[in-house]
Structures are given as C-alpha cells and as structure tokens.
C-alpha cells in the first residue's frame, strides 16, 4: 500500500520552476532511496545457469512462453520518480519500483497460486525457494527486497519531499 502524500505533484512543478537546483537535489535523494531496492532485487534474480534449461532461449523455438534471460530481466528492474498517469481510482504514483519483463514477473510471482506445479518445484529445487511478502506483495525479487527494506525507502522519500517543501517555502517567504 503506497504512502499517500498531498501536493507532491505541485511541489515537483514548483521546484522545477522556482528552484531547479533544489528539484535536482530532491530527485537525487529520491533516486538514492530507491536505488538500493532495485540493486538488491537484481541480485535476487538467478543467472542463466540457475534456471531450468527449458526456460532459456532456444534457437528455432516457436513457443510463446517468455524465455528467461538474466541480462534482460535484470535490465527490466528499475525505479521511477516521475508522476504516473492517474489510475482508475484517481491516484498518481510519485515514486515506484518496477520489474517490467515478462520473465522477471514470472520468476517474481510463480508459485503463488500453484506452488506444487512441476515448473515451480523444479525451479525451486534448482535455485531455492525464497518468497517474501504477503498476498499480492509476495515475490522472489522485487517484492522480497521491498519487504526486506522495511519501509526505509518510503521514509527516505517522504523525508526528501518534506525537506524540499520546507526549503521551497522558506525561499518563498524570504522572497516575499
């Protein structure tokens, strides 16, 4: 469940308009808070040699099931600090981490609903089972890292935003 802030987007706009340096500094702080999560998550993805051989890319394969490539999967893990489009409920994400490859998502969540499937069991036997989190936030890499982070990133983000807002307000007051 993301932490909800109010005026974050306006603050971002105001920072970029009135204090570009402070905006850059805030972005750097936010990035610094999110980067450890993505870095750690990338480390939880197995190498190509640690996944089932049938999951790896093969020549002349006609299968549609996404093949696993450690390089691509790890490249698909990242973070985002720009506001997203509003979702159906009207929320806009200000900071998020993502795992956007299909194979990465499969590795992340496989076995949630079918823990006894052959594929999941074989993969677990080969690389180990280490899911963390609860419910929809349960996973092997990104969710696991986020669980292990214990909200430190969130606190850091909030702190960065708060500091930026305070600085901006102080500047605005000084200018009159």
């Amino acid at each position, binding site marked *: 469940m*993301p*932490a*909800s*802030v*109010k*005026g*974050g*987007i306006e603050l971002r706009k105001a920072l970029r308009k009135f204090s570009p340096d402070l905006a850059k500094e805030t972005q750097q702080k936010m990035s610094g808070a*999110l980067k450890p999560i993505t870095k750690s998550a990338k480390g939880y993805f197995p190498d190509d040699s640690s996944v089932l051989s049938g999951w790896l890319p093969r020549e002349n394969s006609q299968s549609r099931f*996404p093949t696993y490539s450690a390089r691509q999967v790890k490249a698909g893990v990242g973070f985002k600090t720009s*506001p997203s489009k*509003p*979702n*159906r*409920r*009207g*929320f*806009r*994400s*200000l*900071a*998020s*981490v*993502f*795992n*956007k*490859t*299909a194979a*990465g*998502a*499969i590795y*992340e*969540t496989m076995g949630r609903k079918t823990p006894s499937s052959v594929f999941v069991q074989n993969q677990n036997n080969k690389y180990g089972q280490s899911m963390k989190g609860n419910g929809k*936030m349960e*996973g092997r890499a*990104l*969710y696991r890292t*986020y669980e292990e982070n214990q909200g430190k*990133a*969130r606190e850091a*983000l*909030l702190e960065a*935003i708060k500091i930026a807002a305070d600085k901006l307000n102080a500047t605005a007051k000084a200018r009159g």
Partner: protein
Amino acid sequence: MANIVIDILAEFTGKNAFKSAETSTDKLNKSAKSLGKTLGLTFSGAAVLAYAKKSIKAAAEDQAAQASLAQTLKNLGLETGNTAEAVNAFINNLERQTGILDDELRPAMDRLLRATGSVSESQKLLGLALDISAGTGKDLTQVTQGLQKAFLGNVQGLGRLGVGLTKAELKTGNFADITQKLTDLFAGQAERQADSFKGSIDKLAVAANNASEIIGTGLITALQGLGEDESINDLTTDIEDFATEISKSIQAVGLLLGLLKTVPDLLAKTGGPLFKLPKELTGAIFDLEKLFKFTGVGALSGIFDFLNKGATGDNTASGLAHLAELQAKYAASTLKNGKKLTTEELNQLKAKQLKLAIDKANLALGKGSNVFDMEKIQLAAAEKNQAEQLGKITSQAQLLQITNDLARLEIKQSILALEEAIATGDVKAITAATNKLNADLNILGVLTGQKIKLTEIESILKGILPKDLINLANLNEAIRLLGLIGAGTGNTMATHAAPILGDPNKSPVGIPATSPVMVPSIYSFGQRPNQGGGFDFFDPEKVGMFSAGSSGTKSVTVVVNVNAGTIANPEQLTTMVQDAVISLNKRGDLLTYAGSL
C-alpha cells in the same frame, strides 16, 4: 502486459474520480434539463397548443366515427330516430365499464351491425367479443372479425383465435351453439379485467381520451367564436395566442402564489396596509390581465358552458353572443392596458438606447486605451528587436549604435512613465520618473560622446591605412623607381636607388661600406664572392654542371628518371588480369566470343 510495479508514494489527484463525478453530474444535469424541458413543455405555450390540437383532432375523429356508425344504422334501415344515440350511449357506457376506447368499440359495433343487421344481436356479440378478447388477449378487432365471419358461416377464423373449440365442434355446430359455448367459456372475463389494475388504468385512459375529445369539441366551437375570420389560418393563430397567454398566466399564477406568501412579512415591515404592491406582484397581475384581455373571463366561462351543455348549434350561437357581450365589456380595460403597455415599452426602449450609447462610449474608451497600450507594445517590441540585434553585431560601432537605440527607447519609456505619473498627480511618482528620465538622458549623452570619439578614431585610422597597391599613381611611381634602379650604373646607382618608402635622397642603410656599388657589376661578369673575401669568376665545374676533367666544351649527359608509377610486377599483373576476367565471367559479361575455347 506483465509488469510488476510497487508504488511507494502516491497522490490522490481525484481526476478520474472527479471525472466520473462530473459524468454523473452531467447525466444529472441532462436529466434535470430533460425534466425541466418536460415541465417547461408541460406549462409552455407549445405544449398547451399541442394538447389543444390533439384534442381537436380526437374530437374530430370521434365525430367522424359517430357519423359513420349513424350512417351504417341508416343504411341497414335500423335508424328509428334515436337508434344512433342509443347505440352511442351503449358504446360510451361499455367504454367506461371495460376501459376500452370507443375508437375500438365503435368500429367493432359497426362491423357486427353490418353482419347481423340487428342492434340487439350486435350488442350481444360485442359483449361476447369483449369477453373473448379479455380471455384470450387477442385484439378486439380481431375477435370481432372472427365472430362476424362465423355469423356469416366461416368459422375458421374463430378456430385461429384459440378459443378452445375443436375442429369438430366448429364444423358441426351452428353459430348459436358456438356462441353459447363461447359464452360459457369466457363469461365474466371482460368484467374481471375491467376490475383489475390494468382495467383501472384503461378506464383512466378512456376518461382522459374522452376529456380530450370533449375539450377538443369545446375548443373548436369556442375558438371559431373567438376568431372573427373562420379561415384555418386565423384559427391557428388564435389557438397559438391562446396557448401563449395560458402559458404566461400559469407562470404568473405561480409567481403570484409565491409572492402572496410574502405579504404578511411586507405588512409587518410596513406596519400598515399594503399601499404599494411589489413590482413582481404587479407584473404577475398584469400578465393575468393580459390573459383576460385576450380571452376574457366570459370567454373562459363560455367555453365551460359549452363543455357543460354540449356543443350544439344553439349553444354555439348563445356562446358567441355571450362572448361578444363580454368582449365589449372588457374593451375599455384592454385599451387602457394597451396604452400602459405602450408607455412601458417606450421606457424600455429609452433605457435600451441609453445603454447602447454607454456601451459605444465604453468601446471608444477601450479603443483609446488600446492605442496607448499599443505604444507600449511597440516600445517593447523595439527593445526586443534591439536585443536580438545585439547578438548579431560584428563591430563595436554596431554595438554602440544599438546601445544608443536602447537608451533612446528607455528614454521614451521614461517619458511615458512621467506622463502617467503627471496624470495621476502622485508627487513621488513624478519625482521618481523625472530622476529616471534624467539618468537615461545622461546615459544617452555619454553614449553620444563615445560615438564622437569613435568617429575621430575612425578618421585617424583612415589616415594611417596603407595605400592601395593597385592605385595607378602608386604603380607609376613604382615603375619610375624601378627605371631609376635599372638605369643606375657604378657609383651613381646609390644616388638613384631611392627606396619606395621614405626619403629618396636619404642614404641607404645596412649596405657594407666597401664599394656597395660593385655587387651588381661582379655578378654581371660572372663573378661570385669567395671565402677569402675576394671574388672568383663563375666556374660551372664547381657547381657540378660538368664532369671532372672535362672542359667547357664537353658534352653534357643528363639522366632523367621517370617514375611511371608501376603498380605491380608482371606476375602480379597477370594474376590481376586473370582475376578480372574470372570476375567478369561470373557476372556474365564474357569477353570471349561464341565458339571460342
């Protein structure tokens, strides 16, 4: 798309939520507008007019159906003086009891009358048809047609109605047996349906329809009486006017009722009787008066009299007389109201003219302010242009010029500011603007001084610039000097060898003191200076022009090496040619002719 995203921070912008709320609001607005339109339509002149037209149409159709039935009775020889009235009364009664419109009953009765030739038999069969219709759910017209055909010997139509008669019964039984069977089967169905909720609704519909027909009948008679000309166009105009006035009167009644609620408060405020009515109240009363002016109370009462008594010819005549009387009675008040209306309209026209004049004046003032603004805009544009020119300068003179222009623009702005300050009368602002103008003028003065200095520098530079070599005078001078140099011999050369620059009579400097005039004469005799400080004759052998031991008359062998740029040795060249031929063969561009090996 497989994409796992963890949102760590989020903000509720509510755009989608508000959008959905807006959509809902829009829908509500549309519904409200629709409701408003409906209500407006209900109380509008158009709705009243439509209802009036509909009523008139229904009344006309009803009258036509009654006439058709009467004609049928007359054709069948059943008309005995009041048969038509009796049949109509029967149908009306049946209509009220069953909730089936006379628009259906009358044609059904007409059809049965033509088949049976008997009023009583037709009434009996119509009652049976109503029961069958209620029991089977079939249309009354369809059932009546089946009964009509069965009476005439064709019972197949009854079988199709699904009334529960077998083919054998239909084939063997006579019409009396069949009707008896049907009566047993469908007895009380029409009554039961009439007592049901649907029957009640149908009865209401019948009542509304009858009311519409009655009103239509009354309207036709009354409006014919109201209109001086009986042509359709005039009648239509009268109907529209009538509907419009009714609409206004409805609104006026609503307003009147609302304002009457405030009367106690007004009384309490004034502390006495209400001598002056509020404007809205007088307006509402005025609207009501207009309605009365148009229709007259007597006209309305006349219409109601027509409705009560029935629209017969005698009543029409009496109603028209009554209307004429009432119209004469209210003619004076109508005229008075008309004059009052004219006065008010004149006042309104004057107010509109005044407003128009004020608007025009405001427009002119706006244009004037735009002109002043335009001056500022032009100044700003000029400044911007000068700033752009600053980026394109290539010399200090241009920079100075642009700076001068900018200073002038600044002065112009300062003058404008000073004028504005003077107009406002603010002493501080005037002082500040004056100071700024003085400062700008000083800046311009400094810049102008710099320009003068620059002009002076430019003239000096022109003075020190070297002369153009292509100048003909210079060339002539140079040729003259060269001629002097060429003509000079021996010691006299020094006196004639004048330098191009400088004083020609001045002695040349840097030339050795020992017979500088000898240098050209030495070279002219083939001598050159030796290492001992003396001079030797020119010896070709010493410079390698002749081989050792040869005399001055020996032949000279000159070896010339020409680098032809050979690209390969013969073997390589052969290989290259072979490769080229093979390549050409591969491309199909054969060099061999047909038949060769």
